[in-house]
C-alpha cells in the first residue's frame, strides 16, 4: 500500500485519540487525515462493493440514515455509516478511522453516509456514490447556502454524479424534478405519501417557497414506496399492492413515518430480491430516535423530550408532532454557524399552538429574540435566561414532577446534552449508535 495512506491513517488515529482525551471534537481527526491525503476517501471505500449510498436533503437525514442502516444490517449486510450526526466530509473520515485496517480500506459490504447538501457534492467529487437518497429541500441556514434554488441545484449535481440508482421524494417539486436531469441508465425510485393522506402534505413541506410545478412525478409503480398510515402510530409502506407493515416506530409523527418510507424504498432498491418485508418491519420497530430527535430522558421519574429544531419546516413539523400533548416547554436558540446565524427563520414558524400552555423558559444566545417572537404570537413566556445551564436547572427544578419538552437548535442541544449527561447520567454525545 502507498506509504502516504498509512501515514494518513496513523496521523488521523493519533489525532482521534487526542480529541477523545480532550472530550468531543468529532471533526478534528478527519481534518488531519484529509489534509495529509486528499485521495484518502476514494481508497478507503475502494473495497466496498455492495453500494456507496449518500443520504441528503434538508430535513430528516440523521433519522433516515439510521433507519436505512438498520434495515440493511437486519438483512445481514455489513454497513459502514457515520452515526454521530457529523455530516460533513471530515466527519465521515473521523468515523471511518477506527474501522480501517492498516490497508486503509474499509472492509464492509456497504457504506451509508449522511451528508449535508454541500458536503455531499464535495464527497461525490472524491468518490462517486452508487446510490443517492434525496429527501427534501427547505430553507435551512441560508447564511451558508444563500438560496433554496442553490440548495436544489446541489442535489441535482449530486444525482448527476450517482452511478446506479437515485431515490427521490415525489411530493417535493425541488427534488422530483431532478428525475428529468438524470443520466440514462440510472434507476429512479420514488417515495412519497399515499393519496389517502395527500391532505397532510403541508405538515411535511414548506409550500410558500414552491411555485407552480413544472414537473409531476410519474404514477407510482410497484417499486415505489408510499406512506399510508393505519392510525396515529402505525403505518404501511405500500409497494403496488404489497404493504410493508404495519410498522410502529419508537419516534412519533408523520415526519418520522415519511423518513421510514424513504429508507424502506432505498433498502428495497439496494437489496433487490433479498428484501424481506417482515425483517424490515422488525428492524424499523427497533430503531431508537437519534440523538435529540425526540429522544426522551428520564429525570426524577418524569420524561424530558429533546427536540432538535433548525429551520422553519423542521420546527413546524416538530410543533405539529408534539404539541398535541402540551407539557412544560423550554426553547433554546443559539446562533452559531451550526445553528444558522440568522434567526429570521423563527418568524416563518407559527407558534400559536403553544399559546394554551405558554413557554416556561427561553434560553440560548438568542433567548430574548425567541421571547420576542413568542410575544408576537401572544404566547406567554415565564422566564428568559440566556445561560443554558442555569435555564435547564431552573426549568427542571420548577417542573420536576411533570413531563417536560425542550426544543433547541444544534449547538444549544450539544451544550444541554452535556449538562444532562453530567447531572442525570445520560449517555454522552457520540457514544450512542
Amino acid at each position, binding site marked *: 500500500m502507498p506509504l502516504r495512506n498509512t501515514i494518513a491513517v496513523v496521523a488521523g488515529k493519533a489525532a482521534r485519540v487526542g480529541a477523545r482525551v480532550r472530550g468531543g471534537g468529532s471533526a478534528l481527526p478527519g481534518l488531519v487525515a484529509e489534509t495529509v491525503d486528499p485521495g484518502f476517501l476514494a481508497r478507503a471505500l475502494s473495497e466496498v462493493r455492495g453500494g456507496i449510498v449518500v443520504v441528503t436533503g434538508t430535513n430528516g437525514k440523521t433519522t433516515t440514515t439510521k433507519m436505512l442502516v438498520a434495515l440493511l444490517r437486519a438483512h445481514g449486510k455489513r454497513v459502514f455509516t457515520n452515526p454521530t450526526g457529523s455530516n460533513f466530509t471530515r466527519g465521515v473520515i473521523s468515523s471511518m478511522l477506527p474501522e480501517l485496517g492498516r490497508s486503509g480500506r474499509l472492509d464492509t459490504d456497504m457504506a451509508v453516509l449522511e451528508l449535508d447538501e454541500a458536503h455531499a457534492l464535495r464527497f461525490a467529487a472524491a468518490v462517486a456514490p452508487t446510490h443517492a437518497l434525496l429527501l427534501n429541500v427547505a*430553507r435551512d441556514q*441560508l*447564511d451558508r447556502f*444563500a*438560496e*433554496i*434554488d442553490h440548495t436544489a441545484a446541489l442535489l441535482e449535481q449530486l444525482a448527476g454524479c450517482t452511478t446506479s440508482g437515485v431515490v427521490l421524494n415525489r411530493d417535493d417539486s425541488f427534488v422530483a424534478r431532478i428525475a428529468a436531469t438524470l443520466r440514462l441508465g440510472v434507476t429512479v425510485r420514488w417515495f412519497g405519501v399515499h393519496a389517502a393522506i395527500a391532505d397532510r402534505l403541508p405538515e411535511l413541506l414548506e409550500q*410558500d*417557497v414552491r*411555485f407552480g410545478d413544472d414537473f409531476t412525478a410519474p404514477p407510482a409503480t410497484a417499486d415505489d414506496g408510499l406512506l399510508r398510515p393505519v392510525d396515529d402510530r402505525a403505518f404501511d409502506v405500500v409497494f403496488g399492492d404489497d404493504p410493508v407493515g404495519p410498522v410502529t416506530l419508537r419516534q412519533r409523527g408523520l415526519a418520522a413515518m415519511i423518513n421510514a418510507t424513504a429508507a424502506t424504498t432505498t433498502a428495497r432498491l439496494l437489496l433487490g430480491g433479498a428484501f424481506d418485508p417482515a425483517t424490515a418491519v422488525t428492524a424499523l420497530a427497533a430503531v431508537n430516535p437519534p440523538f435529540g430527535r425526540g429522544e426522551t430522558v428520564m429525570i426524577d421519574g418524569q420524561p424530558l423530550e429533546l427536540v432538535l429544531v433548525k429551520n422553519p419546516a423542521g420546527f413546524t413539523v416538530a410543533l405539529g408532532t408534539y404539541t398535541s400533548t402540551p407539557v412544560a416547554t423550554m426553547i433554546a436558540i443559539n446562533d452559531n454557524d451550526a445553528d444558522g*446565524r*440568522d*434567526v*429570521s*427563520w*423563527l*418568524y*416563518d414558524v407559527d407558534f400559536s399552538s403553544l399559546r394554551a400552555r405558554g413557554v416556561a423558559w427561553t434560553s440560548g444566545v*438568542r433567548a*430574548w*429574540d425567541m*421571547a*420576542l*417572537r413568542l*410575544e*408576537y404570537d401572544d404566547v406567554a413566556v415565564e422566564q*428568559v435566561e*440566556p445561560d443554558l445551564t442555569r435555564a435547564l436547572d431552573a426549568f427542571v427544578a420548577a417542573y420536576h414532577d411533570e413531563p417536560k419538552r425542550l426544543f433547541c437548535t444544534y449547538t444549544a442541544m450539544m451544550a444541554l446534552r452535556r449538562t444532562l449527561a453530567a447531572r442525570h447520567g445520560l449517555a454522552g454525545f457520540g457514544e450512542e449508535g
Partner: protein
Amino acid sequence: MPDTAPASKGTITVVHLYPREMSIYGDLGNTRCVAVRIRRHGYTPNVVQHHPGADWPADVHLVLGGGGQDSGQARVEADLVEIADRLRGLAADGVPMMMICGTYQLFGNAFVTVEGTRLPGLGILDVTTHGNAKRMIGPTVLDTEFGTVVGYENHSGSTTLSPGQKPFGVVRHGYGNNGDDRTGGARTHNVFGHYLHGPVLPANPRFADALIGYAAERATGRPFEPEELDDRTADEARTRQVRRLVG
C-alpha cells in the same frame, strides 16, 4: 369582545408585496409585527397580500416588501412594471414603504448584472446596485434617526447611493449598502430601502412605530395616537445584540 373594548381609531391598510415570491428571510415577520402593533395601538389592520397579476387595492397606507431569490424576482417583474406608476405616485405622496433586499434593489434606478446588463428599476430610490460575486452575509448594526437598529444582511448586490440620496443609516457593524462607504440603506420621502433581515421591525419597534405613525396619519387624517406599548423584550434583545457586535 366585552363591550368595554374601545372603538377602533381607524383602519390601516398594509400591502405586503409578493409574499410568496419575495419573503424568503422571515420577511413575513415584518407584516405580522406591523399588524399586531397596529392593533395594539388601537387601530384596525387590514393586511392585503399583493400577488402578481392581482388588482392593486384602492386606499393604501403602508407597503412592505421583502427579499427573494433570483427566480422569485423574475416572477414579479411583469407585475411590478404594471403597478410602477401607482407605487411612484404613492411614494411621492408620502405613503410609507419599507423595501428589503430584493425589493430595495427593484425600487432603485437599476440593477447591473456581473455581465454588465442593466436591468431598470422603479427609480423611487436614487440608488444603483451592481451584481457581485461576493455575498455580504452577517449581523448588522446601523445608527439611524430611529436609534440603533439591528438586523441580519444576506445579499450579493452592492448598492451605491447617487449624490444627494439620503441613507437610512450609518453602518456600525456589518457591510450595509456595499461594504465600503458605511452607508446603510436609503430613504426618500417615507420610502425606506435596506438590507436588514432579522426581521427588522419586531427587533426595532421605534422604526416600526414610525412607519405605522405615517400610515395612521394617512389613514385617518389625524396625527398618530399611539398607545404606550411594552417593548422591554425587544429592547433587551436589541441591546444585547448591539453589545455583542460593537461592544
